[in-house]
């Protein structure tokens, strides 16, 4: 790939596009065959993969909202990258269709039977309302995202920044509500007896963290191919590193708070969720999560040099991205395999399938418009931005 320095449009992008599309199609075809060998495995793997890419898109969405609401300029130089990720989110609605087909396998509440608790919850947890809610989330997200995206690519100056800020201010509130309910619906209700009011914030912590490190990896990938080598500096990586460090702690803080209150209260209907994740190899998975999602990145990212050294930062970012997947796997899979972790090839094929198409869409968004918001009055300030 290359870049046209007059328009800041990427050129020779076809090979990357083809490769991502091929990866996606291959993954989807393999997963499709997987469905016939083991539907329950397919649906659960699919939900993990869908949640992974959806939370990544939602994290990027929140990144853009925060960029505008706070009037940040340091991140103007990477804004197009984040917007491209955000812009790929609405496409994921297509990949929700298999989940609708697998409702009875994934969610026990879809067929409450004689279970009094599930019958009591059925005014909220029923298949019709569940479908309506998911479509509603995507419509709301699509409206805000397309508004922000259009304003950004057609930006002419300062006035558009004010418009984007107004949209983002309202969007932040809407995001908080829709994200919380989406994580209740898609993830928490896989164990429909259990509930935790902080659950939405917990998933959000991982989602935003995954988006930050994805942007880091994406920027490194572009720079590796000779794009934006002078524009994105170690100052930008340093700030992304600080943000990532902050959200490593935030995730652990929220996960710890959730665990702590349940541990203290010691009420069986709440502790059962953690009890399920402390048997057999799930205990190992829990410990891996604590070490990989918190302790290791915390110790590494606390150092000034680690955030400015792209080699170290890249390694930590990759670890965290894998850990975000482990986190979602650890949230969803115990309801299918209560005895212990059982990794299947479908976990990978569904990740490649949804991921390939999702990344292809990101790439499509990014190559359609200049890779820098060239009309933004703060762009030069962002490029020359420094100070530790």
């Amino acid at each position, binding site marked *: 790939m290359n870049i046209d320095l007059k328009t800041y449009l990427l050129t020779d992008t076809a090979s990357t596009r083809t490769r991502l599309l091929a990866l996606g199609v291959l993954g989807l075809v393999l997963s499709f065959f997987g469905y016939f060998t083991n539907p329950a495995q397919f649906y659960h793997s699919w939900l993990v993969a869908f949640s992974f890419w959806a939370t990544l898109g939602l994290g990027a969405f929140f990144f853009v909202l925060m960029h505008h609401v706070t009037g940040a300029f340091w991140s103007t130089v990477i804004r197009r990258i984040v917007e491209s990720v955000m812009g790929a989110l609405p496409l994921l609605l297509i990949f929700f269709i298999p989940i609708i087909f697998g409702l009875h396998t994934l969610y026990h509440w879809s067929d409450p039977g004689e279970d009094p608790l599930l019958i009591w919850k059925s005014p909220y947890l029923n298949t019709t309302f569940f479908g309506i809610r998911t479509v509603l989330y995507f419509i709301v997200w699509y409206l805000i995202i397309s508004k922000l995206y259009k304003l950004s690519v057609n930006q002419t100056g300062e006035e558009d920044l004010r418009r984007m800020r107004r949209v983002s201010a309202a969007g932040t509130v809407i995001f908080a509500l829709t994200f919380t309910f989406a994580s209740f619906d898609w993830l928490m209700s896989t164990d429909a007896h259990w509930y935790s009011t902080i659950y939405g914030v917990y998933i959000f912590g991982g989602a935003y963290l995954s988006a930050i490190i994805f942007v880091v990896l994406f920027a490194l990938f572009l720079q590796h191919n000779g794009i934006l080598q002078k524009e994105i500096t170690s100052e930008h990586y340093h700030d992304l590193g600080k943000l990532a460090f902050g959200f490593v702690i935030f995730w652990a803080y929220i996960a710890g708070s959730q*665990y*702590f209150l349940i*541990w*203290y209260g010691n009420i069986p209907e709440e502790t059962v969720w953690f009890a399920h994740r402390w048997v057999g190899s799930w205990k190992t998975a829990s410990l891996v999560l604590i070490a990989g999602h918190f302790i290791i990145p915390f110790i590494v990212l606390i150092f*000034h040099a680690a955030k400015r050294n792209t080699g170290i930062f890249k390694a930590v970012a990759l670890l965290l991205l894998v850990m975000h997947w482990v986190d979602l796997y650890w949230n969803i899979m115990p309801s299918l395999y209560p005895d212990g972790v059982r990794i299947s090839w479908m976990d990978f094929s569904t990740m490649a399938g949804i991921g390939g198409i999702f990344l292809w869409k990101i790439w499509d968004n990014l190559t359609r418009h200049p890779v820098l918001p060239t009309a933004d009055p703060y762009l030069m300030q962002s490029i020359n931005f420094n*100070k530790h």
Partner: protein
Amino acid sequence: MTKQTLYGFLAEFSTPGDLLQAAEKVRDAGYQKFDCHTPFPVHGLDDAMGMPRTKLGYVIGLFALLGAIGGFWLQAWTSTVGYPMVIAGKPYFSWQAFIIVTFGLMVLAGAFSALFGMFHFNRLPRLHHPLFNSENFKRATDDGFFISIEAQDTRFNPAETRTFLTKIGAKNVEAISSE
């Protein structure tokens, strides 16, 4: 009368830009014991002066770690050895319950070490400084931009340093006595 010894030179510059350029030249000339005085923070001055990164972070990190270990040990010892009591049917050694106080003591020790470490590195508290002998120096809180070079510096030479400061654009150079 006490013996009047030379503390150093105080050079005044007209604008923050002049000061920034002058600071770079003082740094490149190899001076170590010099400082800049401005009424407001001047962006990029740290780099122009060649200031190394502060070590305060490591001090805070160390004390925060000690605070966390101390806090955890305090609770672990009191609830298992010193005064073992069954609370809410939990085991004596309930590390989960200790985390909050451990965290609190980590923050406390970190915050105190940040404050007192800052004092230490800034050599505070200090009641008087030779630069206050200069009437002109009062403008450092208003509209004056100054560079002071101490006589203790190995590269310091009264005649040469004075001409050097004038050459790099100082409006006036004042000799400051240390008493």
